Every structure is written in C-alpha cells, then in structure tokens.
C-alpha cells in the first residue's frame, strides 16, 4: 500500500512537474515585443502612405546623398519617396556610366578599383549647404569631390601623405575652407617607415590633417597636418558660429593598445575628443612652423602649443556633433548609456585657466567635470547625433536599436523609436547645418534581418525614413539601400541647380568635333587618333582600320544637346565601355590587337539604337 502510495505520489509529482515545465516553457517563449512588429494601427499606415507617396511625375522634396561604403559609390535618393534616383560612382569603376573606363576617370582612380567611402559632406557657406560640391572620403586615404552641377566625380585627391585609414573625414568647415582627414590606423610616418608593433605607443603616430578647398573651383590641395598620439581617430564635426574655427574629432584606443583591440582598447573608462583650433594651426603652418614629413607640413602640438586639447569622453566614442548654434559638442561613448553635452564656453574657459588633467604627448587633457554641461541618458550604444530646429537632438542607439530624441538645455529624452535594426549613422534633413529643417530623419541601419523578400545570405542594408515633424517620431518607410550607408547628407532639393546637358560652347576638349565631316582617323607614327561623332542613330565613322600594335585613342563626342540622349561606345573584347553624355567628349586609349571588333552604342538612345554600330578592323603586321 505504501509502495502504491509512493508510486501514486511520484506519478502526481511527475504530472505536476510536467505542468510546471509547460508553464515554464510558455513563459520562456513570449511573442515578439510590440516594438518589433509594425504596430500603430491603420491610421499610422494611412499617414505613412500619404506622407511618402510621390505620385508618378511628381518630384521629391529632398535629395539624399548616401555613402555607398565599400561599394565606392554615392547613392542619390529622394525624400519622402526614398526612391533611388541615381548612382554617382566615385572610387570604383561603374560600367553603367562608363566611369573608370575612359582615360580621364581611369587616371583619376589611380589604379585602385575600390575605396571604402564613408562620410559625405556637402559644401557649406556660413554653415549652411550651398549646393556646390559634395566631398567624400575613403579609407585608402583619399577624398573625392563631386560637382553637384552635373553630379560627377571631378577629383580624387590622395592618397594623402601620412594619413592611414582615413576614417575621420571628410568633415567640412562652415565656409568650406577645409575638409578634414584623420588616421584611424596609426602608423610610423612618413609612409614606408618601419617600426615593430611593440613600439606602437611611441613610434606609431596618429595624424589629423586639413585639405584646403579652392574657393572657386572646389579643388582639393594639401593643407597642413597635426601630429597626434597613436589613437584611432574616428568621426569629426566642425565648430560653427560661436565655435567656428574649431574641429572636433573622436579618438578611441586611448590605451594605445595593439592586438585584440575589442578588449585591449576598451580598458579605460574614458577616451577623447580632440579639439583642434584649426585657425591657429593654419596660422602656424603659414608661419612655417613644424616640419615637412612626407611632403606636407606637420605641426607637433608638443612643440607648437595651443593647437589641440583633449576632451575626455565616454568610453570608445564614435560620433561627435556640434549643435546648430555651435554652443554644444555632443559626444557619445558607444560602450556607455549616456551621451555627453560639452559646453564650448566651458572648454574655452578651461583652456584659459589651464584647467588640465595631465597630458598626452604634450597635448593638454581638459578636466571632464569642468567642460561638460550634461549627461543625457539616451540608451545603450549611443553613436551619432543630428539636430532639428528648436534645439531638438536625435541620437542613434546601436545596441538598443532605436533613435532617441531629446532637447538641448533640457537634457531629457523625449521619445524613442525602435528601428530595424542596429542603427549606425542617422541623418536629419540639413541636420548638421546651422539651420536644421526637421521634418525627416533617416536611420541608416546595419541589419535588415528579413524585413524584405528573402534575397539570399547577402542581405540588403536598410534605411528607414522617420517623420520628426512632431514630438512623437513615426517610422514612415523601409528602404533597402545599396551597401553600405555609413552616413548621408539630406539637402532641400531647391538648393541644387544641376544641368541637363553639357552646353556645346563649354566643351573645350581638344579632340571634340561637332560635324560628321570631321570624323575619322589621323595617324602619327604608330599613334592613331580616331574622332567619332555619336548622334542618333550613327557612330561616325561606321568603321575604321588600324594596324596591329597601334596605340589607338578613340575620342567620342556626343553632339546631342537634348536631355537624356546619352550614347555609349562599347568595344567588344577590349573591356571598353564609354558612356558619353550630351555635349561631352570622352577618350579611351588601347593597343590594337589583330582581328575585327564590333563597337556599338551601349546606352539605349533611339528607335534605331540597335543599328548604331560599327567595326574596328585591325590589319595584322
């Protein structure tokens, strides 16, 4: 009986345990939290649909220039539709526009066929976008200039001497005097110098540099550089209005560590924001102070004091942003839950009073408590901050996968909107100028995690459009943007005045011709020049003959002056594809190999586009 009782008891216990297990199991598998489903109800969908719908034929309000990361391109989108409008190839060849195939753009690429584009910067006048140029950096140490008159890359400057891993770029000063460059990977300088890794803390150097922008042409040129401790210089923003003349750059790895940086560079509680008095540096360089290293004037703050101060910032900072009025410098340590608002006036006072807390290689470190105004508890993994009107600030939270809005001066979070997923940069409409627009913000997310039709393991990036018109932020649209948006600039459409064709009168190309009568072959020794006219629907000459081994330069002039009448020149078996815009002349040079090679118009132009073809005939020697 007792045994039976025991058996019954154990049965009951087993059953009870089973029930508990079931309860426990169901408790451990909750449904997804509301934040990760669309939520909001139908009225929000209706609002979002209405806000983002741009009817066929209608135009968007804003241009978005988004960095294409390691694609090397800049992508142009429209807001509010988030439609992809155009791709501007910068650091990579792009057959669609023939970029990197003609002589000029090939030369500009300098033999490199990729670049990890990062931070686009629109040119500014008095701290506002002026719609002239767009600059963008890449990690190999180059900065490119895109002319917004024709949306074309006009210059790739660099690799800049001494700069290694140009991540802290291409932040621009309020009157487009300089574009900043900075090393993320400190190395011994000049490039080519040897130093073993255990000498990292002393022999490896960080460098912060300024490239001079020509005020009329926008052309970049070597400015000056500042020798820095071997930290990793990451992101910058120029001071504006009251803080004009200063540049702020975050620096992680204050530990000067090497090896497994995720651990070794995360030991100290604070890293730095380097505050650079670029006007003082400009003056010092003009006076011939410092020394020439790698062909550029490099100022050592230990020998030329007053150029740089270090502001202690939360652990492993990524983003730094100067408020529209120039009064606050917002820095976020990505391994902290707060973002810090530094007061520029307090920074100046601390510098005047020598309120220092030690130094790094002769650069004074300011006292954190003396220069900070507030710590805003924004959430986990704060990265970048952008601004709206009336002191509104928006901080991206990588770990929380959200964007927090808060107000300058009040230092309290107002709203938080979950984004999908893991936001890196964010961009608000004209949100880094002295006059932010508000209205829209884009969350540039690192992960999209299946919020789209499955396209295999190579998942697209996601950019979400957010309505910041009201206190309550609202997700309006999921766009799956080209990889990888690091940062973007959003500019009101009417600030740009692009052309539609290149006016014939402006074409000063020495090989340009405008009449089919002038088309044909000229020879000097083994150098052959072929002038080709492209116009609907013939490439003239329709065939030409050269000798095997000739150095052939083909110059194609598109004599059209009509919008959208582009012509291509694809030469089979030569890896050549030019695309020539109306009014433009492009050349390509190659060595002739024997045989017969068709060429044809690659860019669809007209009803008789298919007939727009010809033959290169190469006689054997």
């Amino acid at each position, binding site marked *: 009986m007792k045994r039976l009782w025991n058996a019954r008891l154990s049965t009951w216990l087993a059953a009870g345990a089973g029930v508990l297990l079931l309860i426990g199991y169901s408790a451990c598998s909750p449904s997804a939290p509301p934040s990760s489903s669309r939520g909001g109800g139908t009225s929000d969908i209706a609002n979002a649909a209405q806000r983002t719908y741009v009817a066929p034929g209608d135009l968007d309000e804003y241009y978005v220039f988004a960095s294409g990361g390691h694609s090397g391109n800049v992508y142009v989108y429209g807001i509010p539709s988030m439609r992809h409008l155009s791709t501007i190839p910068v650091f990579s060849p792009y057959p669609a526009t023939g970029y990197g195939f003609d002589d000029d753009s090939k030369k500009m690429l300098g033999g490199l066929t990729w670049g990890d584009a990062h931070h686009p910067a629109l040119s500014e006048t008095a701290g506002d976008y002026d719609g002239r140029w767009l600059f963008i950096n890449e990690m190999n140490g180059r900065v490119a200039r895109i002319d917004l008159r024709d949306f074309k890359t006009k210059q790739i400057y660099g690799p800049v001497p001494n700069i290694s891993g140009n991540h802290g770029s291409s932040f621009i000063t309020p009157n487009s005097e300089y574009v900043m460059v900075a090393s993320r990977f400190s190395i011994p300088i000049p490039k080519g110098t040897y130093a073993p890794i255990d000498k990292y803390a002393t022999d490896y150097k960080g460098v912060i540099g300024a490239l001079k922008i020509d005020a009329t042409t926008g052309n970049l040129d070597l400015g000056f550089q500042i020798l820095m401790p071997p930290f990793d210089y990451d992101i910058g923003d120029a001071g504006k209005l009251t803080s004009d003349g200063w540049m702020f750059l975050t620096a992680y790895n204050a530990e000067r560590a090497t090896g497994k940086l995720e651990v070794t560079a995360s030991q100290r509680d604070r890293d730095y924001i380097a505050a650079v008095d670029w006007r003082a540096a400009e003056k010092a360089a003009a006076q011939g102070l410092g020394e020439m290293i790698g062909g550029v004037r490099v100022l050592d703050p230990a020998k030329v004091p007053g150029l740089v101060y270090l502001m202690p910032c939360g652990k492993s900072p990524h983003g730094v942003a100067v408020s529209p009025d120039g009064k606050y410098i917002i820095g976020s340590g990505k391994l902290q839950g707060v973002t810090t608002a530094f007061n520029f006036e307090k920074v100046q006072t601390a510098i005047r009073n020598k309120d220092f807390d030690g130094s790094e290689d002769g650069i004074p470190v300011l006292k954190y408590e003396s220069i900070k105004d507030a710590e805003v508890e924004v959430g986990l993994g704060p990265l970048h901050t952008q601004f709206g009107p009336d002191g509104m600030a928006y901080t991206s939270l990588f770990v929380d996968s959200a964007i927090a809005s808060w107000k300058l001066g009040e230092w309290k979070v107002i709203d938080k909107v979950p984004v999908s997923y893991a936001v890196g940069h964010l961009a608000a409409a004209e949100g880094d100028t002295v006059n932010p627009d508000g209205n829209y913000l884009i969350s540039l997310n690192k992960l999209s995690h299946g919020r789209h039709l499955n396209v295999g393991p190579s998942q697209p990036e996601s950019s979400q459009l957010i309505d910041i018109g009201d206190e309550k932020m609202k997700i309006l649209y999921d766009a799956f943007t080209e990889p990888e948006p690091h940062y973007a600039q959003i500019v009101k459409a009417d600030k740009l005045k692009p052309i539609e064709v290149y006016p014939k009168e402006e074409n000063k190309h020495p090989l340009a011709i405008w009449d089919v009568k002038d088309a044909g072959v000229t020879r000097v020794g083994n150098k052959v020049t072929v002038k080709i006219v492209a116009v609907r629907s013939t490439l003239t000459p329709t065939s030409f003959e050269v000798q095997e081994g000739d150095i052939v330069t083909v110059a194609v002039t598109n004599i*059209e*002056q*009509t919008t959208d009448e582009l012509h291509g020149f694809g030469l089979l078996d030569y890896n050549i594809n030019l695309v020539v815009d109306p009014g433009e002349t492009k050349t390509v040079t190659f060595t002739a190999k024997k045989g017969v090679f068709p060429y044809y118009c690659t860019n669809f132009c007209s009803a*008789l586009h298919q*007939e727009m073809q010809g033959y290169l005939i190469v006689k054997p020697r």
Partner: protein
Amino acid sequence: MTAMLERTATRLHQPVGLASRACLLLAAVLVVTAHFFPLWNLTMFAPQYPDALRLDIFDHALVGGNGGQDLKEINLLNHYIGMRDLAVEDFTEFKWMPFALGGLALLFARAAVFGTLKELVDAVVMFFYFGGFSLWTFGYKMYRYGHDLSPSAAVKVPGFTPPMFGHKAIANFDVYSFPQAGTYLMISVAVLLVVAFVLAWRRTGRPAGRAPRKVDLELTAT
C-alpha cells in the same frame, strides 16, 4: 468710258487727307516692327516631348525653342523620315522678306508724304501682293519639305503637309500651327491700309462744290 477713266485719273491725283496719311505712317512703323516678332509658330507635342518642340518663324530666321535646341531636335528627328534639314540658308524668303518689309515701309512713308490717292493705291496693292505671295510661299515650302523625302530614308512615310493653321496629328506628334505677333501686326497694317483707302476714297469722291464735312475741315485746317 474715257470720261470715267479721266475722272479716276483726276481722283488718283487728289490728296488723301490727314487721317489716311496718319494711317499710312502708322502702317510704315508697324511693318518695320513686324520684323522683330515671330510671324508664325509651330508647336509639336509627343509623349517623349511633354514640353513640346517649338519653332518660331520670323521674316529673317527660324528660331527653335529651348535656346535653339528644338530646331536641331526637329531636324534630327526628321532625318529618320528623310526630310531635308530646315536650314536658314535654304530659305531665300529670309533674304527678300526683310528687304521687302523695308521697301513696303518706305512705300507707305512715301504715300504718307506725297499724300495722293495714287501712292496710297500703290501701297495697298503692293502690300496685299506681298502678303499673298508670302502666305503662298510659306504653304508651298511646308508642302515641299513634307513631300521631298529621301527615298533611302530609314522610315518610309507618305508625303504630308504640316498644318498652316490649327492642329494636325503627324505620327506620334500633335502639331499646332498658329500665326504670331508679327502676323497680327501685318493684319493690323492691312486694316490700316483699308481704312486709309476708304477714308481717302470717300474724301476724293466728294462732288466738287460740296462743303467738306466738319471732320475734313478740321483735318485740312491743321
């Protein structure tokens, strides 16, 4: 019969009055002004050309819209159907029309100064001859361009005549053709000449001895 001819001859030598002279002077000015305005306009819409291609015809030139680009585009499109380029140098009209307008202005001024019915009649006849001939040559040119198509054209179309006035659908184009300011000025000139002639005719036809009407008195008094 002879008497009638004599009467007419006498009448032709009579002065036309100040009102007619004023009309003639104004006509001279307007005829010169017409040189500076387009006489005719053709506007062509197609799906690919929502902003239309525009062509203004002056007495001395063809001017395409969009800074001249539209004319190049029209020629470019026309080459597919084997139409000759509309080239200013192919039109003798652009040489003689400004010359003729200048001549007409001088003729009107002459009539205004000499002031007899004879000169006025010359002016009216020459103007209407000029106007009629110009319209005919315009229409004929339109016809020739639309019919003299190259037999080796990529796209074979039957000969056509663009509209002189109003709308016509040609392939994918909706073509609108209307007179412009220059032509309206010329019409004003025609009206002025008719008014001048009617006034002069009535004045010169007055039986001898009949007292001039008040209005004539005032005009002759000045």
